[in-house]
């Protein structure tokens, strides 16, 4: 996604900012009621449940995504397509979805755990995983009508079809509302024209959630979400992008050349696409923030054994204070970022609070720390960090994406700043 749908619109934000003014600025926080964000009968998992889940995912990754698979995915820049079936069989693709369509209804903490552990094994497989399970599956879970859920979710959750979300365009990244893809009403549906850029899973996707302008003059109030299926005529992937990192998480440019979409494939209400977009936005940032956590953990996994094994001047380099200092910095950055993500996710699961500023904050913080940690990893590995024999350079290249995709760091700061501006709006007058 990321690069994918990414760069989210700041301009679009005001559309959802209709909240009562806070009376006690410090205790009231910007949040949406999350009861509607969980499947029926959802019960927050306990700490023990989550710990068990983590072990299960580790069991999966060490069998199915060992270092050789991660390295090959990176080098070949192509996603191992049999992985979808494996992820589906393991039950990972519908963490937040209804049980009657094959989901697990375990909530967002659980989704973060899976995302973190898969990203720990391979950043790019993790990114594609989230584009599928969060951006597509959870988007359909939250906004699809019962027929749409029954039609698309079982296949997506089983891993027999691949999902993506298409929002960004080459000229509409952070300013997503300036998108130019149009959807013209015709008999029985809509005809889509335009191109979408940086679409994670785009080259492989069977089901794509696409945003297009149904009322181009109405700005954010004229956008509608559609479910486009691969077999629709006029839909194609023009090219696969050659990226710096996240290689093997296939990213593409999608072309819609007079694609007819039947009206039963309209997702959410007509002209309310920005609502669909924004509804999922906070949760997407939250789930994605577990990606950089996994990359940081991977950096520790590489760095700690290496620095304790490698001897110079007759002693392991990890026994030098400057190296100890770096290890301590890496570790505390990881732990602090992890606490932030899981605390934010726990509030969603247990209290139904989706704190916009914390969803943006968690991914902003984790993403920047992940780049720092992977740079430290390279430094501590010395020459071995600079060659492709070790995964250090891949970690850095993968980590950097999270400062750009799903909203840049700069956009995230605006989001957080705006939350304060809103809270303290009464002081400005």
């Amino acid at each position, binding site marked *: 996604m990321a690069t994918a749908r990414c760069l989210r619109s700041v301009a679009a934000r005001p559309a959802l900012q209709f909240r009562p003014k806070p009376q006690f600025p410090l205790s009231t926080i910007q949040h949406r009621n999350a009861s509607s964000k969980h499947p029926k009968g959802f019960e927050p998992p306990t700490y023990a449940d989550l710990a*068990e*889940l983590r072990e*299960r995912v580790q*069991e*999966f990754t*060490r*069998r199915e995504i060992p270092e050789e698979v991660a390295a090959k995915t990176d080098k070949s820049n192509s996603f191992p397509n049999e992985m979808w079936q494996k992820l589906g*069989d*393991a*039950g*990972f693709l519908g963490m937040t979805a209804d049980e009657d369509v*094959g989901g*697990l209804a375990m909530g967002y903490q659980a989704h973060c755990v899976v995302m973190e552990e898969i990203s720990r094994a391979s950043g790019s497989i993790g990114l594609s995983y989230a584009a599928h399970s969060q951006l597509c599956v959870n988007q359909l879970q939250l906004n699809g009508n019962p027929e749409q859920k029954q039609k698309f979710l079982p296949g997506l959750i089983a891993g027999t079809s691949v999902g993506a979300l298409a929002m960004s365009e080459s000229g509409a990244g952070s300013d997503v509302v300036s998108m130019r893809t149009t959807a013209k009403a015709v008999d029985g549906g809509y005809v889509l024209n335009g191109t979408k850029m940086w679409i994670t899973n785009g080259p492989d996707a069977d089901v794509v959630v696409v945003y297009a302008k149904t009322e181009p003059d109405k700005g954010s109030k004229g956008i509608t979400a559609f479910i486009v299926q691969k077999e629709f005529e006029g839909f194609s992937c023009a090219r696969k992008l050659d990226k710096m990192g996240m290689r093997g998480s296939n990213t593409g440019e999608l072309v819609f050349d007079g694609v007819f979409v039947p009206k039963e494939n309209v997702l959410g209400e007509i002209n309310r696409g920005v609502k669909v977009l924004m509804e999922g936005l906070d949760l997407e940032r939250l789930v994605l923030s577990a990606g950089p956590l996994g990359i940081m953990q991977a950096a520790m996994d590489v760095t700690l054994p290496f620095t304790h094994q490698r001897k110079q001047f007759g002693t392991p380099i990890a026994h030098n204070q400057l190296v100890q200092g770096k290890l301590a910095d890496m570790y505390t950055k990881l732990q602090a970022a992890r606490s932030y993500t899981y605390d934010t996710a726990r509030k969603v699961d247990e209290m139904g609070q989706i704190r916009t500023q914390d969803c943006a904050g968690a991914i902003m913080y984790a993403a920047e720390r992940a780049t720092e940690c992977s740079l430290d990893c390279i430094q501590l590995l010395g020459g071995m960090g600079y060659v492709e024999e070790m995964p250090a350079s891949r970690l850095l290249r993968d980590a950097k994406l999270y400062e750009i995709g799903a909203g840049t760091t700069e956009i995230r700061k605006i989001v957080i700043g705006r939350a304060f501006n809103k809270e303290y709006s009464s002081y400005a007058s």
Partner: protein
Amino acid sequence: MAALRILVPVKRVIDYAVKPRVNKAQTAIETSGVKHSMNPFDELSIEESVRIREKKSYPHGVDEIIAFSIGPPKSVDTLRTAMAMGADRSIFVETKEGEEVEPLAVGKVIRELVKREGINLVVCGKQSIDDDAGQTGQIVAGLMGWGAATQASKVSFGEKGVEVEKEVDGGTETVRSQLPMVITTDLRLNEPRYASLPNIMKAKKKKIDKISAEELGVSLERRLKTLKVIEPPPRQGGGKVDDVDGMIAKLKELGAI
């Protein structure tokens, strides 16, 4: 002929990827805070049992697959994994943390369970990767007076009985036996599935019956006493010789010939 009633003994051991460390007092291996999982050979046993059922390779079918474990309280996790992989229910004999049970006592516990549950096939790992005793399967067969096919790499059911290909040095050996019997599993037998999340959820509803060794009339008292546990000495690097003469000279020098 009756359907198969399979008992699969499983053991919770230190994970195969963990490097074991000897504790400070040199009395045992450090186990606290160390990742544990199911003994890999036991995964093969569960997998094989489930495949016998799924592939209907035994003509009279599989009536029940029961997982069994004896060990500290956390062994319950291992039983849950076994049930998530396909065992129908579990029997658990709990021991105190740190209490090691010898193969003979385990064998006697299994003997009692085999009698109680009307088991006609015991499928167990050829050894556990912690103490590597490699005795339990054979002891069970001995106590019951059953046949035992050890280190199985292939199991098939024919008209004349159960055929098992065994891993032996330099190849395989095929043996045939009649039920009831014991089979111990080796690495090439199959590739165990991992427990998927939906199956783990379902496994939580499966039953684990707890029973004590006393109730079964078995004493877990140890016959062996561990005096000291030490790490193996670090490997001494070898040397290279240029030719046969060099090798002979070296062997003479070492007093080997």
